[in-house]
């Protein structure tokens, strides 16, 4: 597990360490058989499946990402150009998580996953008469005249006393849209199935034929709470494609922005989880701490949620000495507050009664699903790109991994508390040792096609980006993968056996993105 050198067991797949982060590379596979075989090798070598996506003309392909301790491996399977609906081998037989990704590719591109038994639409909801991304960019997509006429075939549980609760897409609160179907006996959930795709905005299609700067604005709007993470992954992908390495000052400021996003979201989540367990005090207290942080963001970076702060080649704002002193003071105050609130959470019997043994995701299940992020780490999955890989600046001030083992709501709360504390000390180190303040350089031009990958540890887990550039900085295709797509199936496993009334609490402890999933 701790061997960071390329292993002999991965023939032909070798990664070169990179200054700016995680070693990562694309590995073209010549035949579907080779693709399938290589995926099996990576999976059995302990690789975590991170996502699968497609790209259409002019170079139709399937890309599949695996994260190993060595770095990020992306297998590329080119598909025949002139065939209208080419096939590719499904991985879902040995990687169950591939199911929804392959259905998405089928919905959007019309590529057919061979061996995938699940024929139901997923992201596309059968809304279009032809797969929208099989058409050239900008062409109108005819709607499916029969859309909405038939219900999505949820798996049904039958038996005496079993009933069904449909929830959504409009939920009872300020929440993104999605549908949950519960099969229930009495108060207890027997089965939960999700139907997502309501926020599908055609992001992969929008990237096509745009310039790099426009793409950066879109990448910042994949999931509003992860704007730094998605912008950073996108910037890394562009920079890898153009063989450009950002300056140390840029890397440090990006790392700082990423931690500020993590802290803000964890604060919001901790407050909301406490509130869902009946402690209104939590929502007020954490709401204030989060608001203070957002106001500091506005003051020093010009944006509360740090939209568009990370750009390919740099960052938007630098910090002067006064700002650094102010942020260091904020850092100390926040740490004190967090320690006090952590103690209050721990000592509160009523709260712990709701948290403990609720929404348990067993470590072995999390391992089988290949989970990372807060949810994975709360179920003993020791993956954190910041701790594992340590490109600069993580190597200089390595953040410790936050880990819990019980896999319940309490564990997910604990991981968030620990991560805020770790983020604060990491941010303090960054602020105290901020390298020279160069904030942006112009990125080079490319005369031929270029391709790159980016991956960062966002507040939910690994955020992945892939871009393929045509000459002179025109995006031919791009894809951004939020970890939510992998975590949603885990929620379906954590909820059954719990009371219906505990669903909001469990759901909040996962806090997954709909927009980042649906793209």
């Amino acid at each position, binding site marked *: 597990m701790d061997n960071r050198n390329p292993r002999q067991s991965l023939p032909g797949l070798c990664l070169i360490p990179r200054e700016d982060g995680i070693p990562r590379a694309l590995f073209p596979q010549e035949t579907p058989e080779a693709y399938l075989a290589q995926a099996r090798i990576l999976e059995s070598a302990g690789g975590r499946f991170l996502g699968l996506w497609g790209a259409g003309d002019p170079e139709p392909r399937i890309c599949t990402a695996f994260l190993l301790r060595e770095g990020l491996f992306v297998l590329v399977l080119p598909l025949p150009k002139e065939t209208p609906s080419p096939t590719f081998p499904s991985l879902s037989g040995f990687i169950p998580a591939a199911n929804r990704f392959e259905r998405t590719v089928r919905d959007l591109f019309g590529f057919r996953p061979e061996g995938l038994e699940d024929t139901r639409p997923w992201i596309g909801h059968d809304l279009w008469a032809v797969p929208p991304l099989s058409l050239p960019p900008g062409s109108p997509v005819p*709607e499916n005249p029969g859309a909405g006429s038939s219900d999505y075939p949820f798996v049904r549980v039958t038996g005496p006393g079993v009933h069904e609760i449909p929830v959504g897409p409009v939920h009872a609160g300020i*929440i*993104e849209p999605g549908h949950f179907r519960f099969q229930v006996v009495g108060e207890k959930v027997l089965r939960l199935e999700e139907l997502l795709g*309501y926020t599908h905005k055609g992001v992969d*299609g929008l990237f096509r034929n745009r310039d790099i700067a426009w793409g950066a604005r879109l990448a910042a*709007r994949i999931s*509003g709470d992860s704007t730094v993470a998605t912008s950073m992954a996108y910037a890394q992908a562009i920079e890898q494609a153009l063989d450009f390495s950002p300056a140390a000052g840029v890397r440090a400021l990006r790392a700082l922005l990423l931690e500020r996003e993590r802290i803000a979201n964890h604060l919001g989540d901790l407050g909301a989880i406490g509130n869902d367990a009946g402690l209104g*005090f939590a929502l007020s207290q954490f709401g*204030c701490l989060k608001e203070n942080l957002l106001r500091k963001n506005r003051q020093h970076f010009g944006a509360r949620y740090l939209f568009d702060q990370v750009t390919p080649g740099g960052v938007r704002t630098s910090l002067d000495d006064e700002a650094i002193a102010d942020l260091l003071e904020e850092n100390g105050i926040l740490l004190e507050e967090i320690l006090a609130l952590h103690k209050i959470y721990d000592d509160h019997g009523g709260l712990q009664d709701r948290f403990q043994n609720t929404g348990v995701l067993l470590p072995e299940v999390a391992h089988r699903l290949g989970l990372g992020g807060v949810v994975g780490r709360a179920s003993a999955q020791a993956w954190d790109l910041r701790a594992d890989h340590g490109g600069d600046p993580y190597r200089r001030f390595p953040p410790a991994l936050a880990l819990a083992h019980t896999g319940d709501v309490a564990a997910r709360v604990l991981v968030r508390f620990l991560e805020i504390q770790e983020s604060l000390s990491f941010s303090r180190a960054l602020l105290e040792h901020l390298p020279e303040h160069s904030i942006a350089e112009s990125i080079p031009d490319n005369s031929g096609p270029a391709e790159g990958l980016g991956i960062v540890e966002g507040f939910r887990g690994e955020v992945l980006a892939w871009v393929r550039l045509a000459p002179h900085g025109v995006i031919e295709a791009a894809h951004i993968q939020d970890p939510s797509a992998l975590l949603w199936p885990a929620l379906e496993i954590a909820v059954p056996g719990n009371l219906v009334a505990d669903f909001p609490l469990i759901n909040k402890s996962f806090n997954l993105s709909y927009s980042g999933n649906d793209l």
Partner: protein
Amino acid sequence: MWKLLLKIFQTGILTEKRGRPLSQTHPPGFGKSLAIRHVDAGSCNGCELELWALENPYYALSSGGVKFVASPRHADLLLVTGPVTRAMKEALLRTRDAIPGPRRVLAVGDCACNGGIFRDSYAVHGGVDGVIPVDHHLPGCPPSPDELLEAIHHAFGSSPPSSE
């Protein structure tokens, strides 16, 4: 428990005074409070973060008589975010129809106003106007809590909407 109470005491009241209370601006047809049904019609969740922020003690939206409600039957104002994805069109229409009159429709954020960055996509309607009549628009990506408060008060205190 005493630690919790002490913390409340130490925190004090943080709510910032701003604007007029709703009770002075309410138009005929509404009571002295405003109930909002929010529909996310495919936003990136950025606008929702600021809607959530309205509930924190600094803005304390509910202390001014404004609250977000679960049922459209209880709502006066339909607040829509997002560019209206194809998949959300029907849910948005049904929610609107379930809100009794007099009602207002407020489109929040660049996406809801004109589709924002997603405008040219095959998957969106390019803003709320493309699907239902809108009474008030609040652009921004995302609009700040202050702008949101102002827009909500404005929508509430305005003359009867065109959509009635």
